[in-house]
């Protein structure tokens, strides 16, 4: 073990030639070291410097261990580790724990190659909610000199970690530029109606293919997984007139439907009315025919009886008729052989006969026949009870 020697050199040499100290000696040395650094009792110059030399040795060993430890790193399953030695590419590592020679010899860059990232063209999403269009990015010209407002969402991932790190400065910005350029080229090759309606999927697909080709040309190491057209609209300034066209289409349909409803209303009604006309005519016909048959039959019956005894039947019928007529009307009997003037208050008769109509009695007026008087006759009404 270490001898009680004076001088730093000897202790240094001795330590170089010694075998590693035993454990309790190590602990004793560390205690000494702490005492010397934190103001413990100094056991003389040589003791202090020896303790200092011992602690320096252990400090260096500690530092070396820490330095070595910085070389440990872990690669997640979705990542790749790219190791550079003195700046030159050394190798790439996959998932798991690894060790590289610590800085400044080697350095590792970890790149996530599975995560799907998003790029937005023409709009910005803030915290999962649509925050609005960026019209300088989204307005573009079509083949027929019209303008459309197109918003794209691009999804991509890092396919090749080395290319991503070493080939292009700021690959994400490059992707954004490329997609902006390509979408305008594709939209510029098509008409506005195509882009806004039937061609959305096709346009998105063309953008994906062309953008990927350019990204490969530049060797960015990025791979586009999907391009979707978030929105394709006419510019806001003309949106109202576009909406009106849709309304006009609906109006056209509505006019036609209203007319069809009208037709479906009046034609069946007309058919119904025509049936009614026919039914009424047939009813009239059967009514008239039956009536005529009945009356003819009745006449025939009575004619038969009449021909058997004409005079008697004639007289009887005549009397019966007049009986019926006279018994149900008001009568005034006037003798035309007398020369007196008569005053018939026809109005009064009509009025009084009307009021007494409700009772089933008939009133009769009589004038005396002894007409030698020149004064007006008196008419008395006598009610038969």
């Amino acid at each position, binding site marked *: 073990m270490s001898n009680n020697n004076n001088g730093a050199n000897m202790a240094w040499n001795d330590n170089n030639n010694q075998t590693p100290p035993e454990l309790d000696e190590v602990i004793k040395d560390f205690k000494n070291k702490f005492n010397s650094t934190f103001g413990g009792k100094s056991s003389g110059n040589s003791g202090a410097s020896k303790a200092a030399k011992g602690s320096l040795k252990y400090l260096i060993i500690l530092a070396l261990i820490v330095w070595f430890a910085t070389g440990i790193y872990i690669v997640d399953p979705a990542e790749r580790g790219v190791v550079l030695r003195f700046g030159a590419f050394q190798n790439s590592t996959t998932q798991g724990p690894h060790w590289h020679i610590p800085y400044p010899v080697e350095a590792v860059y970890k790149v996530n190659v599975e995560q799907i990232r998003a790029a937005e063209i023409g709009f910005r999403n803030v915290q999962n909610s649509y925050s609005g269009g960026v019209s300088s990015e989204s307005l573009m010209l079509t083949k027929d000199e019209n303008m459309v407002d197109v918003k794209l969402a691009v999804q991509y991932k890092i396919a090749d970690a080395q290319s991503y790190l070493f080939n292009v400065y700021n690959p994400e910005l490059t992707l954004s530029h490329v997609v902006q350029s390509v979408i305008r080229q594709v939209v510029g090759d098509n008409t506005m109606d195509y882009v806004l309606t039937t061609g959305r999927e096709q346009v998105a697909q063309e953008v994906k293919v062309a953008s990927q080709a350019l990204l490969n040309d530049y060797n960015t190491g990025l791979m586009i997984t999907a391009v979707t057209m978030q929105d394709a609209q006419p510019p806001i300034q003309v949106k109202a007139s576009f909406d009106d066209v849709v309304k006009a289409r609906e109006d056209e349909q509505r006019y036609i439907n209203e007319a069809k409803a009208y037709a479906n209303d009046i034609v069946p009604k007309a058919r119904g009315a025509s049936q009614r006309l026919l039914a009424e005519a047939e009813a009239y016909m059967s009514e008239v025919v039956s009536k005529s048959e009945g009356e003819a039959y009745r006449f025939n019956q009575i004619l038969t009886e009449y021909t058997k005894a004409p005079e008697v039947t004639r007289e009887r019928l005549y009397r019966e008729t007049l009986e019926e007529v006279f018994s149900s009307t008001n*009568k005034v009997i006037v003798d035309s052989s007398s020369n007196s003037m008569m005053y018939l208050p026809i109005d009064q008769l009509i009025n009084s006969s009307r009021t007494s109509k409700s009772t089933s009695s008939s009133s009769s007026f009589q004038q005396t026949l002894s007409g030698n008087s020149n004064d007006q006759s008196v008419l008395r009404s006598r009610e038969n009870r």
Partner: protein
Amino acid sequence: MKRIIIVIAVLVAILLSSSLYTVNETQVAIKLRLGEIVSVENKPGLKFKTPFVNNVVSFDKRIQTLDSASESFLTVEKKNVVVDSYVKWRIVDTQKFYISTGGAMASANLRLAQNNQDALRSEFSKRTIIEVVSDEREAIMASVKAKLKTIAEDEYGIEVIDVRIKRIELSQEVRNSVYSRMETERKGLANKYRSEGAEEAEKIQAFADKERTIILANAYRDSEKIRGEGDAISASNYAEAYSQDVDFYSFYRSLESYKKSFSEQGDILVLNPDSEFFRYFNPTK
């Protein structure tokens, strides 16, 4: 003794740090001695240089993007368009690059940008807006790229990888006229739909009215026929019966009409007792 060793160790460290340098995968470097180019280091890794005599300048050798500000150009129709483009370039001849630009990326970008704008301006001035937007977009970009390629390689040691137009925008007045044209076009379309709808509706209604009139007219005709038939049959019945004894018919029928006519309480008959009915009334006769 120990102190000397420490000093020696420190000196060695200083020496080492000033004679070693690294070139990254993304970089390319030039070793200079007192302002003169000694060598070009393209491969990455750990390199040596003479301390205090050599100094090293390094550049990013990756593909750079020059995104110049938008410029407005005139087309052949004398219309203003605002164009935003980008150029993708990288250093290929490091020596030439350093000599021509002094090693400053900014000045390289500036020179490239000027050349780019000039080339674009001349391309745009030969074409119409439609050609620029769709038909000849690729041709313009290829032509500008070719022009820039030769200039850049000859003069700056730069390889131009790609030139692309990011945006072509119309000036405000032209845009407004485009908007108003789009609006009138849409208005025309809307009017067409509405008037076509009205036309079709009118047709349907008129046809329905016609059908209705025909149906009713036919029904009237048929009903009149039936009524006529009925009248004919009944007339023949009457004639057949009454013509058996015309005299009796007129007597009988008159009696019926007297009965029917004079049946109201309100009726007043003024009678002459000389009539047949009163034959037995006045006993003097």
